[in-house]
């Protein structure tokens, strides 16, 4: 066989093996795909630093109608701000 065939075979083995190892670590092949497709692009560390002014974003109350600004909640006491979702 030509060298490029061997290179191709080795590359394929590495890729398949790597994907297999990741699947094993993460629970299944679907999870590797989900991680690469959905988690990686959304994962950002951002540029905010301790000491920066907190971005004053507009938020929605639980009635789905009322809006308020984060600054409305800032100033009286320290504000613990927790971001998250259900799933």
């Amino acid at each position, binding site marked *: 066989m030509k060298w490029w065939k061997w290179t191709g075979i080795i590359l394929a083995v590495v890729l398949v093996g790597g994907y297999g190892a990741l699947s094993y670590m993460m629970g299944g092949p679907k999870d590797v795909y989900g991680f690469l497709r959905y988690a990686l692009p959304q994962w950002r560390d951002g540029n905010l630093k301790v000491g920066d002014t907190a971005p004053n974003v507009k*938020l929605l109350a639980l009635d789905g109608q009322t809006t308020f600004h*984060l600054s409305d909640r800032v100033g009286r006491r320290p504000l613990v701000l927790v971001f998250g979702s259900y799933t």
Partner: protein
Amino acid sequence: MGYLVTLYNDYKDRADFLTVYIREAHPLDEWQMKSNVDQGVCYAQPHSTEQRVAIANDFIQRFHFPVPFAVDDMHDIADHAYSAWPERIYIIDEQGKIAYRGGIGPFNYHPPEARAWLQKRFAGTTSTATNATAAGSGNSNATR
């Protein structure tokens, strides 16, 4: 989540808390997790404000979640401004500056760090968490 509720109960008389509900991390039309299926927590990624608010309300009702709550808008303004997805904690001081900036979840999400910050900030104050709880929630106005 249970940790956050405890933290809230321990410090709600000295600090304000706000939970911001952002984009779903593992909706059924994206990267769904088996653990969520097992618990019957199956939602598609919301595509309207109404859907997003409805999921936030489901969450609060299911867990009787006591911490004040807000919802990020459909442009994910808060998520983007704070690089929050999938979960993250910040503490903002009285001057509006970021005093604590937690890491991104799940691997660098460590609520005990927020507790440590609060402990340090309120070290030496006479009102301990136990006293505050024992005194009842009558004078607590954390929820505004």
